[in-house]
């Protein structure tokens, strides 16, 4: 008992009481699910063809990485490292789409936010493209680019770019005029206004756009990889299902969810804290 108590006090000190409680409460549904899953294996309610045992999912990682020698092999994406290759190629596509989509979305969004004429020209086509964005493009993209990188990247960019564009546009429009005026009266030119007023002022909206586009982008990517990909987690799930390797399907689904949670918690939420919360530009409930 005393060991547990010291451990609990140590944990409380490390994370803070409130946060610890939040983490504990949030993990309850997961624990319930895991227990039920494990019970299913023990009681044999549903056969392993439908719900594989937890251990077999763990094993699937090893099966998929058979022959993969070390971290060097993983990083150089050698053929044997199937599991990590699928993860890396999905991640690579997301990364590439962000590298292209964020700067171009922000640039055009700022332009459209500044100039009515530009906005009038781009807004209708944006609404049009946004309506089709995502999976509806897949068949056409396969015709144009074949299966593989270009198709999946195209699908992702279609989601990422427009979301960031629209959010930047709205963000820039929402920046109070007086900020712009004050920089102008200090002698600031157009570039100073863009970099010191519009972009930081639109940042809350841009960060929301990035979060949204990551969320929607992930989903679109998985779908695109299933039909039009030649690698990636979506592709892995699809191929494994066709081969009745149900534990690999489960593994793929879990990895997708876990990776999304990691990016959101470790990347996007801290980004929000560092910028807009520090500037007092966002309403905080607690």
């Amino acid at each position, binding site marked *: 008992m005393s060991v547990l108590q010291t451990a609990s006090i140590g944990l409380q000190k490390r994370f803070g009481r409130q946060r610890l409680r939040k983490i504990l409460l949030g993990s309850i549904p997961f624990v319930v699910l895991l227990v039920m899953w494990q019970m299913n294996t023990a009681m044999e309610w549903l056969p392993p063809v439908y719900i594989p045992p937890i251990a077999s999912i763990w094993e699937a990682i090893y099966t998929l990485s058979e022959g993969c020698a070390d971290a060097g092999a993983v990083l150089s994406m050698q053929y044997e490292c199937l599991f990590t290759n699928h993860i890396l190629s999905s991640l690579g596509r997301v990364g590439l789409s962000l590298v292209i989509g964020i700067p171009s979305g922000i640039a055009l969004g700022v332009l459209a936010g500044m100039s009515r004429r530009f906005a009038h020209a781009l807004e209708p086509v944006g609404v049009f493209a946004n309506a089709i964005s995502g999976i509806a493009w897949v068949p056409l993209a396969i015709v144009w680019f074949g299966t593989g990188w270009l198709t999946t990247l195209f699908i992702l960019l279609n989601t990422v770019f427009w979301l960031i564009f629209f959010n930047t546009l709205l963000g820039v429009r929402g920046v*109070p005029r*007086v*900020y712009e*005026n*004050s*920089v*102008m*009266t*200090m*002698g*600031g030119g157009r570039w*100073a206004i863009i970099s*010191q*007023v519009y972009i*930081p*002022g639109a*940042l809350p909206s841009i960060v929301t756009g990035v979060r949204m586009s990551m969320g929607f982008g992930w989903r679109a990517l998985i779908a695109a990889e299933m039909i039009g990909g030649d690698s990636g987690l979506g592709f892995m799930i699809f191929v494994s299902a066709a081969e009745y390797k149900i534990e690999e399907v489960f593994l793929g689904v879990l990895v997708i969810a876990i990776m999304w949670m990691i990016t959101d918690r470790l990347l996007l939420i801290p980004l929000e804290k560092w*910028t807009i919360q*520090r*500037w*007092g*530009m966002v309403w905080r409930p607690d």
Partner: protein
Amino acid sequence: MPAKLVVDRLSHHYPDEYTGEDVHALDQVSLSVEDGEFSAVVGPSGCGKTTLLNILAGLLPHTEGSVQVDGREVQGPGPDRGVVFQEHAILPWRTVARNIGHGLEIQRLPRREREQKVQEFIDLVGLSGFEERYPHELSGGMKQRCALARTLCANPVVMLMDEPFAAVDAQTRITLQEELNRIAIATRKTILFITHNVDEAAFLGDRCFIFSRRPGKLKATVKINVPREQRIWKDLLSEKAYTDPRDEILRLVREEVFDDEE
């Protein structure tokens, strides 16, 4: 010595945003502000005070008449005229120090000199210890001190102030008025201060320009003959040199406010 700010027969019209009707905001306004003088513009709301300020700042183009600062015609905004806006004009994503140094940053002053200047003005407006705070952590009064320091730090020829204390509470306003008076003396700035508050105009101004209702015309000019060094609220309230011209301004402004109700 020529005046620092000269406005000559300035008129301004603009189409109303909703009805499209022609609004006559300013009519043949002529005034001048001497070097180091504190001038106040008073008038009822809608008399074109803010329009005048926006034209002087260069944010609004003028078509009739002329505006000269230091002998040069105003064409667009420029660092020779610093503006202190009503409220919420300092950038939320910059700390107090970075906001105050913003003008110098735009003028590309080297970092070391800039930091030195910034510190000087932080001390002058009494914001020492708050250098690294963000605006949302400051009170309304402190935000306006920061805005004042930002404008002063860029060292403009003329400082234009647009009802800067209108949004703060009465107690803070009194303190800020006395502070501004002290700072104006210390920096010897040429100031045009816009307000609808008669007491404020008479307390701060060497001269007060009283505007008529729309179309805004310069109705009268009232001089306040109290040395600026002696202007402290508790002494001034019983001083005839202050109360007489203040009552005169009040009378002139009230004529404008109540004219159409009779």
